[in-house]
């Protein structure tokens, strides 16, 4: 089917070279999902925060050296201890993973899933951008006279991108495919695509997906060096936006064949693409974003007019929001609603995909469009789709955009469950 807004920009790129036109997917049930982020821990609390406009952002009180910015810090991590038998995995990122697993009965649901299908038939695919690099930073701040790591930083598994998956795998006892996706800020969106493929091609019967990223000096001073950090709370799509507010979050979801949870909301599509433009700046016309959105809609078997709500990447950097607003304005009809929830959570980087998948599912289940917190004066580049204030509205289909460094893009498509 023709897709609005993709014609001219795709001219010169044979579509078969981008991806074969994808088949419509059989939907998967998202039977459980949970989030722990700066705005709230647990889905009910996050729903309430979204409905009341209660932001989790606050002035930076985290970095090792003062840096003027706002952050999305999860207070509850301070009281979390991983279980005694798991102390060799102890670090801020795995504490947040453990906190996330405790929300909404997720740990019990995941263990029941493993018991029902068999440990070797459940995949574990999690996304992260920096994993436990905060522990590596601490280790570098406390090297001995010979320049070597000291206790408690000797454990090799604290110093690898795979630390999160290895920890959660140990907690849940899963023995199916277990893989870390680390594509920066698209990581925990792409896990849905990878897990969906594994299930459809028979390598697993169900999957636990999600992602965790925690505040650390690397990202605070790294984005600061790129001049992308806002000195005030982030204002996605506002004409006066000044950059991102970095956040941290853990989130998880269970994917199963639709027949196993017929009333649950569904993952109906995904799209992935590459900008092939620049390591840390989006393609000026949003080519990669258009490709991932188009591919997600094709796999979902829907047209732009079927999309009720889009949770945007919406980081509040000048360039991301300009490009993404232009893409949405040209691809979707005026009636589609679109917003960024980063004003609530901050940009949780590798965990942004799972957080915003959860926000999209909340919006579908509760029938409201979250506005764009701190967007008081929309940039003139915004089309009529951008929602600045919350709106009550029945929603059937939502998309969620996640775009990362390296020009790595992913769009997910969800449908409301019958259980709402």
């Amino acid at each position, binding site marked *: 089917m023709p897709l609005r807004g993709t014609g001219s920009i795709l001219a010169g790129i044979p579509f078969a070279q981008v*991806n074969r036109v994808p088949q419509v997917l059989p939907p998967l049930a998202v039977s459980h999902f949970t989030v722990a982020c700066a705005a709230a821990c647990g889905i009910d609390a996050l729903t309430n925060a979204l409905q009341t406009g209660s932001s989790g952002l606050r002035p930076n009180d985290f970095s090792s050296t003062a840096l003027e910015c706002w952050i999305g810090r999860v207070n509850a991590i301070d009281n979390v201890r991983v279980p005694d038998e798991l102390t060799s995995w102890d670090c801020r990122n795995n504490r947040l993973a453990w906190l996330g697993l405790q929300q909404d009965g997720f740990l019990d649901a995941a263990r029941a899933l493993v018991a029902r299908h068999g440990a070797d038939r459940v995949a574990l695919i999690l996304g992260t951008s920096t994993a436990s*690099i905060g522990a590596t930073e601490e280790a570098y701040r406390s090297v001995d006279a010979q320049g070597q790591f000291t206790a408690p930083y000797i*454990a090799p598994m604290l110093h690898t991108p*795979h630390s999160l998956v290895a920890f959660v795998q140990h907690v849940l006892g899963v023995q199916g495919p277990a893989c870390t996706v680390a594509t920066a800020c698209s990581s925990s969106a792409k896990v849905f695509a*990878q897990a969906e493929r594994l299930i459809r091609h028979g390598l697993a019967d169900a999957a636990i997906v999600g992602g965790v990223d925690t505040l650390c000096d*690397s990202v605070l001073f*790294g984005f600061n060096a*790129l001049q992308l950090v806002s000195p005030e709370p982030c204002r996605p799509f506002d004409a006066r936006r000044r950059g991102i507010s970095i956040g941290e979050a853990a989130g998880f979801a269970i994917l199963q064949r639709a027949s196993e949870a017929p009333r649950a909301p569904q993952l109906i599509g995904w799209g992935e693409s*590459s900008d092939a433009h620049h390591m840390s700046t989006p393609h000026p016309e949003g080519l990669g974003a258009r490709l991932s959105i188009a591919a997600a809609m094709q796999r979902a078997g829907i047209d732009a007019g079927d999309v009720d709500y889009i949770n945007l990447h919406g980081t509040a950097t000048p360039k991301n929001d300009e490009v993404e607003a232009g893409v949405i304005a040209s691809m979707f009809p005026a009636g589609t609603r679109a917003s960024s929830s980063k004003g609530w959570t901050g940009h949780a980087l590798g965990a942004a995909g799972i957080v915003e998948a959860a926000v999209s599912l909340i919006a579908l289940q509760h029938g409201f469009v979250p506005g764009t917190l701190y967007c008081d004066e929309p940039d003139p580049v915004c089309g009529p789709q951008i929602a600045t204030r919350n709106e009550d509205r029945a929603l059937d289909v939502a998309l969620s955009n996640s775009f990362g460094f*390296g020009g790595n893009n992913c769009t997910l498509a969800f449908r409301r469950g019958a259980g709402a």
Partner: protein
Amino acid sequence: MSGGIEIAVEGIGIWGPGLTGWSASRDALRGTAEVDDTPTAKPAPPLLPVAERRRAPDTVLFAAQAAAEACAMSGRDPASLPCIFASMQGDVAITDTMCATLAQAPLELSPIKFHNSVHNAAVGYWTIATGCHAASTAVSAWTDSAGAGLLEAAVQALDGDCAVLLVIYDSMSVGPLRGPVPHDIGFASAFVLAPPARSKATLQLRLQTAPAQAATTARNAWAQAMLQRNASARVLPLLEAIAMDAPGELRIGAGSQQSLILQVRP
């Protein structure tokens, strides 16, 4: 996948100590030539722009070198290939520089070093250099990243009904990270894989997942030593089996709890 996944191998690339390309390495992989396993010079991958080659991190150079060789052998346009890049650690030298800077003077962190520190830096540079707009991913599974990448690449080829590019790479470790990550060589390999029905290649692999078992050891002593020196070299027993030009079967780790049984059919 009770029947396993069948996949054609259209192109292979390799870069490591004494292993400067697939053709140049076949005799060593068959055990009929010696390998000089002192660390080799940095490669100059043909598809990376000269300016990028000068400033690119080692992981990007190693990965792009192997990828370019595999793509050339396959005859496929790199711009058309979804990319699966697998690495245990990404670029350790960048991580070392970044963490050392953060410990001393965090406000002096280089923006380039920061954006090069993401695990998907190599695949990001590759897609930019080749103009590839297809899906690209960067995965890790600790010391089993090679097997996990192979599984994901085979699934993507099957799912997309198209050829894909798999690159498996890790760099030499530096600084205090030599403790937890004892890599003392850089190593990269690459494969262009395609569904058999879409391919003219005769070399095929059959992949079957299985509970974790000990991986097959390398045929050659030098290779067995090398796969202890860089986790990405754990793909060497597969490369040896392919170089033998005879049917073979081997196991490779795909995760701490899962192995891949690979049948090689020349």
